[in-house]
Every structure is written in structure tokens, then in C-alpha cells.
């Protein structure tokens, strides 16, 4: 089933919470409401002719120009061997998205990663802690306005190049 047909189905079922098909060159996606994404996900998984049983990828993209953080879900169905991309826009100052952990267990770590690096809070997540960075890290590094801290536990994070001579530009 292609993206347009799935969007049709979703729109019939969920109404205004489901946006039109967004075409970014090479990839079509459907944008949905961040606070009802869990219901939509459950529908996508359990509807027999959709049967998206695998969450293949979940990633976040910071878009400061729009004031949004976009979370992208890439779904795949091993039954029908088709794929679908779902998108959710969270507000940048207070990013909140419903978790889909109960639908696909794979989302557990993927959502933790997005929380870790972009600071998106997944409502209802069972174990929302930092995954890759240490627990006492400050800031969300994959945001575009992230500034590296000068030091971490007394270890400075910059290193002067040996090549830097005084007369160097």
C-alpha cells in the first residue's frame, strides 16, 4: 500500500489529527498530532491490511527556523513488505510526544536516544533516562544551537592544535 492510500485510511479513522501527504523529495511522509501518535501507531500495527509490525527507525530533527523538533518514524511491515513514514512536530521550547513503546518495544531505546540528544520528552515512557551521554550531561547536543561546554569534570574539551603557531591566521 502506498503512502497516499495509508493517509486516506488514517484520515478516515482519525480525522483532523492526520495531515496531508508531505512530499520531501525522495520520501513521502504523513504528519500527525504528537499527542495522539500512540493511537495512530496502534491502528497502523493492528489493522490487518497495514500490519506495520516493525518500527525500523525513529529519529529526531531539530528545525529551529520553524521552532519545531520533528520526530520521524519509519515503519515496515514484514507481512506485506511495505514501508511508511510518519512524522510528528513537537514544539521546540516544550517538546512533548506520546510514546509508542507499548506498540513497538524497539521504540524504548530509540526514544531514549532522541530524548538524550534532542530533549524530546516522550510522555508515558517507562524509563526515560539518558542513553548515550552520561547522566550529568548538560544540554542536548543535536540541537542546532548547542554550545559545547568548556570542560567536563575537570577535563577540558578543547585541544589547541600543535600546528597553531602565533603568526598563524
Amino acid at each position, binding site marked *: 500500500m502506498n503512502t497516499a492510500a495509508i493517509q486516506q485510511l488514517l484520515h478516515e479513522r482519525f480525522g483532523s489529527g492526520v495531515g496531508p501527504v508531505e512530499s520531501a523529495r525522495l520520501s513521502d511522509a504523513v504528519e500527525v498530532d504528537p499527542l495522539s501518535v500512540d493511537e495512530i501507531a496502534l491502528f497502523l500495527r493492528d489493522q490487518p491490511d497495514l500490519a506495520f509490525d516493525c518500527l525500523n527507525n525513529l529519529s529526531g530533527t531539530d528545525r529551529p527556523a520553524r521552532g519545531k523538533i520533528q520526530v520521524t518514524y519509519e515503519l515496515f511491515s514484514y507481512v506485506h513488505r511495505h514501508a511508511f513514514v510518519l512524522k510528528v512536530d513537537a514544539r521546540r521550547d516544550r517538546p512533548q510526544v506520546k510514546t509508542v513503546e507499548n506498540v513497538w518495544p524497539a521504540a524504548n531505546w530509540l526514544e531514549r536516544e532522541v530524548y538524550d540528544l534532542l530533549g524530546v520528552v516522550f510522555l508515558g515512557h517507562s524509563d526515560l533516562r539518558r542513553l548515550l551521554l552520561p547522566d550529568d550531561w548538560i544540554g542536548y547536543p543535536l540541537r542546532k*544551537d548547542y554550545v559545547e561546554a568548556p570542560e567536563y569534570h575537570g577535563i577540558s574539551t578543547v585541544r589547541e592544535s*600543535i600546528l597553531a603557531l602565533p603568526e598563524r591566521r
Partner: protein
Amino acid sequence: MSAYVGNIVDSVTSIFDGMAVTFSHFFRRPYTVQYPDRMPVRVQDALPYRYRGFLEVDLEICTGCLACERACPIDCIAIDVLKNKETKQNLLVRFDIDLAKCMYCGLCSEPCPTGSIHHTREFEGADYSLESMVRRFVLDPVETYKPKKSGEDDPAIVPILERGMRYVNEFAVPEAPPKPPKKDAAPAVKPAVGAAAAEGQP
């Protein structure tokens, strides 16, 4: 009971299988290379031509075009070129490569028009300090190389240029034959890395 005996038989036979493979190594050629002594040839000479060891620069044929400095993603090459106002020649005053930082990716030697900067097959450079790993190639300022229209005739430079062009041709894209080196060698302003990416337009 039969399962018990079967297990024992299984264990013994599978151990025997494994040991047969192990013992067969008694009769195979030894595999260890006795680096650094007891080698028929130096390891460096046995390495393939494409091996990406330490970088080296032939200053005689360096045009000072800064292509390598721009191609390096991590700024481990530093080149300074000065313009001599009297002779209208470009002077190469500095060509430093930080071998401690270099990642030996080969991206710098690709755009070089003359094969001046190239990877050697040397890899032995361990030392007690990092400063000694900076290769400073320019000791006294030298003039940059200007290719002659009629072809190179200086007997001192010809073999070096030949070596360089062989390097270029070996790695060149077969489709695009290497272009003659460009004449203008003025130092260009290096683009600030990350500046464009930091501006958040979606």
C-alpha cells in the same frame, strides 16, 4: 543410560575433531612474521603501492594551491604562502602536517595536481612526545612550483615530477585525465567549517 553414553561419545568425537584441526598445524608453514628482525625484506617494501602511510610532500613540485588543506576534513595540514612582490613569485613559507592527528584517509592527496603531497609506505613513527610527530617540511622559504608550458626540462625536477605524476595517474579517475596544474596559486580563504550547517534553515 544410552543418552549418557551417547553424550560421552559425542564429547570425545567432537574434541577429537577439533584436535585434529589443531594438530594439523604442526605440519603447516609457520605463519608469524618476525618483525622487525629476521625479515627478508623490510615490511615497508612489501606493502602495496596504494598503502596509505605517513604523508610526505615534495616541495620541488608543490604549486601552493592549498587544495590539500581545503580537502582535509580535520585541518591537520597547515600551509602558508607569501607573495614576493619583486619577483611575482609565490613563496612557500610553511607546510606542516600533524601526523598525530592525521587519519590517513587519502582525501588530501586526491586533488593534488602534481602528486606533491602523497602517502608513503612508512608507518614507523612512534615517539615519546607529540611535538615530534609534526612534520615541518619547509625549513627555508621556497618558491612554489610553476609548471612550464613546454614541459619540464630541469633535470633536478624531472624525476620528482615523474614520480608525482605516476602517483596522480595511479589514483586518478580513469574518466578524467589529470589536468595541468593551475597557474594561480593565491591563498584562498578557508571556509569556516560548520558555519553553514549551524544556521538552521530546514
